């Protein structure tokens, strides 16, 4: 059995803060040691969602500049999660909009990291 974990890398402003944001608002859990997660010293922080199908390595931006690209967070219900984030007072960048792949919304944390909530929908049926 393969023990390889597939994850995507997101270059963020402050990895520890980004992972904390994901822990707090999107029920992600950290897979690194607590020390690495809390240090905020530039090390990457690996986080995963509760379903075990969405892993992200929040890594510090090599240029030290704020990344303009949003971190993609997959969800099974964009409207519900968007509503929860809005209620929590999170900064909304754009409200849910329909795309050819499904529904997506963008929000940001206090450190300038952007997160795109994506609900992929199969329109082939």
């Amino acid at each position, binding site marked *: 059995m393969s023990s390889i974990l597939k994850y995507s890398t997101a270059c963020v402003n402050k990895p520890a803060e980004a992972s904390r944001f994901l822990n707090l608002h999107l029920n992600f859990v950290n897979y690194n040691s607590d020390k690495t997660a809390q240090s905020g010293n530039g090390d990457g922080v690996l986080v995963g969602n509760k379903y075990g199908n969405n892993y992200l390595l929040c890594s510090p931006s090599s240029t030290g500049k704020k990344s303009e690209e949003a971190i993609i967070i997959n969800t099974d219900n964009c*409207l*519900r999660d968007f*509503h929860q984030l809005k*209620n929590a007072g999170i900064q909304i960048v754009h409200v849910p909009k*329909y795309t050819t792949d499904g*529904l997506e919304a963008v929000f940001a944390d206090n450190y300038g990291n952007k997160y795109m909530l994506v*609900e992929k*929908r199969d*329109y082939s049926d």
Partner: protein
Amino acid sequence: MRKTQVLQNQNKVQSETISKVKYVNECQEFSVRMVFNGDERYTIGNRNISVYPGNFLIINEGTTFTSEIASDAPVNTMSVLYTASFLNSFHRTITSTDNELMDEPFHVPTETLPLFPETLYPFKGDMLFNSVHLKNLFNSDVNDDVLMNEYLYHCLLNFYRVYQKEIIQKSEQLNVLKSNTRVELFRRLNNAKDYMISNYNKDISLNEICRYACLSETHFFRSFRQTFHCTPHQYLMQLRLSQSKHMLKNTNYEVKEIVSIIGFDCVSSFIRLFKNRFGVTPGNYRMGFAA
């Protein structure tokens, strides 16, 4: 038992899972009516319309109708009802420019809303995804008025898109110069389409459909192709195959039982048509969901 949730803005969601029941109603609000399994039969005036999982029905405010579930097996239905003031406000928001909305933010429009055709619309895409989310929230213990309202707003937004595609764009495809004639012809074609959907599993003839639509066979055949880009026979086959797909995915019926339910005579011709249309045999399609 029917469960109803009334939101603060008086929009409503109703749902029940029930067998053998008949209601007589006057619709007090504009409503979107859907089923998630089985079928519900509506009578509006002299029209009988069956709502299956692949379609939803629109009923306008003030329309009197009866609805009936005839089967012994329980049918899960859901209706979303919008007040006239909400519908007016929504309509103005999406049909006005930002400038108009900012110049006159509290303007109450005097013109009436479009009278949406009380016909069957395809229940798929975003309308289906959002309705399923709404149903799940409704059936859960979470009582969140704002989230419920968000779903209702998006369902209406999705409906407006379906309306634009299924009514406005399709009626414009008819080669008829006079606007009134086009509207009437499209209404009759929609009646024919509803008749075909409602009786998809029966042995219906072209002559029967034309009589229902009050159109000659040649006129009906030509106009139907212009509007729906297929012949009435092809449309009927598509309906049967779509229903079979739904049953393969959501029921435990054997393939031969499904063939019989959807009105096919021959299992092998069904399998061939299914494979031609979807690129996979019925058995393999079902196994894809079982895996």
